[in-house]
C-alpha cells in the first residue's frame, strides 16, 4: 500500500512541478514523467492484490467529521485501478507529442496539472473506503476535467461544453451526497465496512439514487448529454482518459453501491438491464448519425457503458435469483469489458487525435484516403475499430462473449419474468454489435479509405513517434487481451466472489468452464485470421509474375472520377438512420432537384441529441424562467444584501434563544 501512496505522491508532485514550470518546455516533461513513474509504481500493489487475492488497506486518523482516511485495494478496486493507471500513463506519453503543437499558444503546465489531478482523483475514488473521502476524491476527479475540456477556451463550443459538463457532474453529485448521507444513516459512520444492511424500501430508494448519481458520470442514456459535448472539446489524450476510464468510475461506484446495499431484489436487475439496453442501442444509433469523429466516439462510449451495465445487470439478476452461472459470467463480462473498453476506446480517441493533428479536421466528410498518408494511425485505428465492433479474436469480442455465454447457459430456466430480460440482453447485444460494426465501417472507410475529400485530407501527414508508439502499444494490447482472454478471466474471480458472496471455488469453477469454451472460439478465430493472411500471401505469390495495374480508388470504370463521386459518411449511414428515425429525429434540409440536368443541389442533416433537446433544454428553460421571477431581489445594493444576512442572523438567533 505504501507503494501506492508513493506513486500517487509522484503523480501529484509531477503535476505541481509542471504547473510551476508554466509555459516552459519543462512543463510537459514534469507532467509526463510524474504520470508514468507514478503509474508504474502505484500499479504494483494493484497487481499484487489481483494475484494474491489479499486486500491491502491503509487507515489514518482524520479530524474530518464522519470521515476517516481509509484506503483499501481489494480485488474490485484493483481491476479498475489497473485500467486507470495503465491507460493514463500511455495517454500521457501521447499527450506529450500531441500538446507539442500548442506550446506557443497555451500554458501547458496548467493542462498537465489538471491531467495529473484527474488521475489522482480517479485513483483515490476506486480505493476510498469512506463516504466522505470518496466524495472528496469524486469531486477532485469531477472538477479537474472541466479545465481540460475548456482547453480551447477561445472557442465558444469548448466553453459551452465545459459548462454542460460542470452542470451535469454536479447534478450527479447531488444524488451521490444524498446517497451517502442516507447510507450513513443512524450508524453515523461512513466507513464502508461499518455500514449496516437496511430494510428493502430504503435500499431500493438508495439504489435509484446510486443509479442516477453514478449513471450521470458513467453516461447512461438521457444522463449522457455531457459526453458528446465534452469529449470532442478536450485534448485527445484527455478525451481518451475521460472516455476510457473516468466514466468507468461511475460503473465502479454502482458496483460498490450494490455491495453496500445488501442482497439485491430482482427488480434492480430489470432496471439495470433496461437502462443498459437503451444506452447501448440508442448510443450506437446516435453514433451512426454523427459527422464529427470524436463526437461519434463519444456516443460509442454511451454504447459501451451500456454493454458493461448489461453484464452487471445479468450479474445482479444471477445474484437475486440464485444462479451462479449468470452472476459469474455477467460480472466477469462486465469487468472484462471495463478493461477492454479502456484499451480500445483509448486507442480510438488517440487515433482521432492523430487525425486531427495530421489533417486539421475531424469532420468525417472532409477526410478520406488517410491510410496512404498516415499508415500507422490507420492500422492501429482499424484494430481499435475491429475490437469495439466485438469481432473475434480481439478483446471486445471476448468480453461480450462472456455475457452471451452466461445468458445462453442459464438465462432461459428461471421463469418467464426472467426469460424476457435475458432475451432482451441477447437481442440488445446482437443489435448493438451489428450497428457498431456498421458505424465503424463508416468511420474507418470514409476517413481512411478512398480519395481525399478536401485539402485537409490532401495535406495530412503521419504524426510524431511519441504519438504513434502509444497507439501501437494499445493496438497490441487489444490483440493480446483477445488472444489470451481465456487466461485473463480467471483473475476476476476474487472481485466476483466479494460482490456475489459466492464461495471462491464455485466462481473459479465457472470461470474455468468459461475459459475452456472461450479458448476454443479464440483458437478457431485465430486460425481463421491466419488462413486469411495465408490466402493474402498466396494471392501475392500468384500475382507476382504478372502485371498488376493500380487505378484510382472507387474508380468504377470512370475515366475521370473525382473525390466527390465517393460515398459520403451521411450517404453510407442513411439507410440505418432512416430505419431508426423514430429515435434519431434527424433534421434534414435539401434543395429540390428539378429538370433533367439539375445544377446545384445540397443536402444537410443534423442529428441533435434528443434527450438534450426534448428533456434538458425545456427543463432548464423552465427553471431559468422561475428564477428570473426572483430577479428583483438582485438589485446591486451591497448594503441591502448585508441587511438580508443580518436580519436572517438575528431571526435565527432569537428563534434559537426562545
Amino acid at each position, binding site marked *: 500500500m505504501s507503494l501506492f501512496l508513493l506513486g500517487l505522491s509522484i503523480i501529484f508532485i509531477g503535476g505541481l512541478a509542471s504547473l510551476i514550470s508554466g509555459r516552459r518546455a519543462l512543463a510537459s516533461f514534469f507532467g509526463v514523467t510524474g504520470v508514468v513513474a507514478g503509474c508504474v509504481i502505484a500499479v504494483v500493489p494493484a497487481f499484487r492484490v489481483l494475484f494474491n487475492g489479499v486486500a491491502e488497506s491503509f487507515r489514518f486518523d482524520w479530524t474530518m467529521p464522519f470521515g476517516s482516511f481509509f484506503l483499501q485495494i481489494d480485488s474490485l478496486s484493483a481491476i479498475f485501478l489497473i485500467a486507470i493507471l495503465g491507460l493514463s500513463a500511455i495517454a500521457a506519453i501521447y499527450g506529450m507529442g500531441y500538446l507539442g503543437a500548442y506550446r506557443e499558444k497555451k500554458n501547458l503546465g496548467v493542462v498537465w496539472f489538471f491531467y495529473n489531478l484527474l488521475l489522482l482523483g480517479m485513483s483515490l475514488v476506486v480505493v476510498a473506503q469512506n463516504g466522505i473521502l470518496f466524495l472528496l476524491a469524486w469531486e477532485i476527479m469531477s472538477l479537474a476535467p472541466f479545465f481540460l475540456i475548456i482547453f480551447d477556451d477561445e472557442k465558444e463550443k469548448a466553453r459551452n461544453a465545459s459548462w454542460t459538463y460542470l452542470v451535469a457532474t454536479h447534478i450527479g453529485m447531488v444524488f451521490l451526497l444524498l446517497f451517502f448521507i442516507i447510507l450513513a444513516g443512524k450508524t453515523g459512520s461512513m466507513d464502508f465496512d461499518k455500514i449496516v444492511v437496511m430494510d428493502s424500501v430504503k435500499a431500493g430508494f438508495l439504489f435509484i439514487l446510486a443509479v442516477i448519481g453514478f449513471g450521470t458520470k458513467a453516461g447512461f442514456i438521457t444522463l449522457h448529454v455531457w459526453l458528446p459535448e465534452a469529449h470532442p472539446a478536450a485534448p485527445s489524450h484527455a478525451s481518451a482518459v475521460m472516455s476510457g476510464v473516468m466514466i468507468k468510475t461511475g460503473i465502479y461506484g454502482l458496483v460498490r453501491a450494490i455491495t453496500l446495499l445488501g442482497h439485491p431484489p430482482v427488480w434492480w436487475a430489470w432496471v439495470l438491464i433496461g437502462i443498459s439496453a437503451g444506452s447501448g442501442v440508442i448510443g450506437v444509433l446516435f453514433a451512426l448519425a454523427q459527422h464529427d469523429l470524436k463526437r461519434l466516439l463519444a456516443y460509442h462510449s454511451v454504447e459501451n457503458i451500456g454493454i458493461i451495465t448489461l453484464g452487471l445487470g445479468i450479474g445482479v439478476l444471477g445474484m437475486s435469483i440464485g444462479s451462479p452461472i449468470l452472476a459469474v459470467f455477467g460480472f466477469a463480462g462486465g469487468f472484462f469489458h471495463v478493461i477492454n473498453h479502456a484499451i480500445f476506446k483509448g486507442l480510438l480517441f488517440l487515433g482521432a487525435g492523430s487525425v486531427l493533428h495530421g489533417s486539421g479536421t475531424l469532420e468525417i466528410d472532409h477526410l478520406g484516403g488517410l491510410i496512404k498518408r498516415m499508415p500507422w494511425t490507420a492500422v492501429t485505428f482499424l484494430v481499435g475499430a475491429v475490437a469495439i465492433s466485438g469481432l473475434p479474436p480481439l478483446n471486445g469480442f471476448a468480453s461480450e462473449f462472456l455475457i452471451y455465454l452466461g445468458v445462453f447457459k442459464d438465462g432461459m430456466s428461471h421463469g418467464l419474468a426472467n426469460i424476457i430480460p435475458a432475451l432482451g440482453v441477447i437481442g440488445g447485444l446482437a443489435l448493438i454489435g451489428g450497428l457498431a460494426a456498421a458505424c465503424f465501417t463508416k468511420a474507418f472507410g470514409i476517413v481512411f479509405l478512398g480519395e481525399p475529400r478536401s485539402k485537409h485530407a490532401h495535406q495530412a501527414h503521419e504524426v510524431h513517434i511519441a504519438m504513434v508508439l502509444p497507439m501501437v502499444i494499445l493496438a497490441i494490447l487489444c490483440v493480446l487481451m483477445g488472444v489470451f482472454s481465456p487466461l485473463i478471466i480467471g483473475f476476476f474471480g476474487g472481485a466476483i466472489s466479494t460482490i456475489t458472496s459466492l464461495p471462491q471455488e464455485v466462481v473459479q469453477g465457472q470461470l474455468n468452464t468459461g475459459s475452456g469454451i472461450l479458448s476454443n472460439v479464440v483458437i478457431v478465430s485465430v486460425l481463421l485470421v491466419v488462413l486469411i493472411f495465408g490466402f493474402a500471401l498466396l494471392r501475392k505469390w500468384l500475382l507476382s509474375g504478372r502485371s498488376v495495374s493500380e487505378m484510382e480508388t472507387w474508380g468504377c470504370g470512370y475515366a475521370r472520377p473525382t473525390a466527390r463521386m465517393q460515398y459520403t459518411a451521411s450517404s453510407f449511414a442513411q439507410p440505418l438512420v432512416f430505419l431508426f428515425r423514430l429515435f434519431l429525429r434527424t433534421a434534414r434540409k435539401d434543395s429540390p432537384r428539378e429538370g433533367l440536368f439539375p445544377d446545384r443541389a445540397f443536402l444537410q442533416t443534423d442529428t441533435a441529441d434528443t434527450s438534450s433537446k426534448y428533456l434538458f433544454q425545456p427543463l432548464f428553460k423552465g427553471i431559468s424562467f422561475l428564477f428570473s421571477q426572483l430577479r428583483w431581489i*438582485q*438589485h*446591486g*445594493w*451591497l*448594503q*441591502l444584501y*448585508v*441587511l438580508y*444576512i*443580518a436580519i436572517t*442572523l438575528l431571526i435565527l*438567533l*432569537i428563534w*434559537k*434563544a*426562545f
Partner: protein
Amino acid sequence: MTNLVDTVLILIILTNLMLLGSSRLRTCIFVVAMQGILLGALALLTENSGLTIHLILLPTVIICLKGIIFPFLLFRTLRDLNVQHEVEPFVGYGTSLVLSPLVLVVCIWLGSQLSLPVEAISSLVVPAAFFSIACGLFLIISRKKALTQVLGYLVLENGIYVFGVSIATKQPVLVELGILLDVFVAIFVMGIAIYHINREFDHTDVDRLNKLKG
C-alpha cells in the same frame, strides 16, 4: 483576573460605540486599531495554562496585525483616496448612537439565553461579541464609503474573535493563525480594490456601485 477581562470587554463595547458616533475616517481607523490591541490583551488574559508559545505568539500576532499593520494599510489607502469624512450615511450618527443601547440590551438578553458548551470566562463575553458583530454589520449596512465597509468587516471579525478567544480556548494555535491570515489577506485585497475603484470611478460610494450589476 475576571475584573481585568471585564474591563477589556467593556472597553471593546465602548470602542464600538465610538465607531458608530464618529464621521472622521481617521478617527475610525484609529478606534479599530485600539480595538485590535484590546483583542490582543484579551487573548493574553484568557490564557490560563501558564507561559507557553501559544501565550506569547497569539497576542503578539494579533496586536501586530490588528493594531499596527491593518491601520497602516488603511491609513495609506485613505491618503491615496483623498477622502476624509463619511458623508450622508443612510443612518445618522445621532440615530446610530440612540439605537445602539437598544441593540446592546438585545445582545445581553441573547447572551443570557444561549447555552454554551463550555462556561464562558465572563458573563460579558457573549454580549460583547454579539454587539461587535452587530456593530460591524450595522456599519456595512448604513455607511456609504468603501473604507467604512472594510472597517465594518474588521469589527465583525473582531466580534467573532472575542467569541473564539474567550470560549474555545482549546482550539489549536494553527487554526487561530489561519483565521488571522485570512483576515490579513482580505484587508490587503480590499485596500487594493478600493484604490482601483476610486481610480476608475472617482468615488468609493458603495451605494452607487449597483451600476456594475450585470
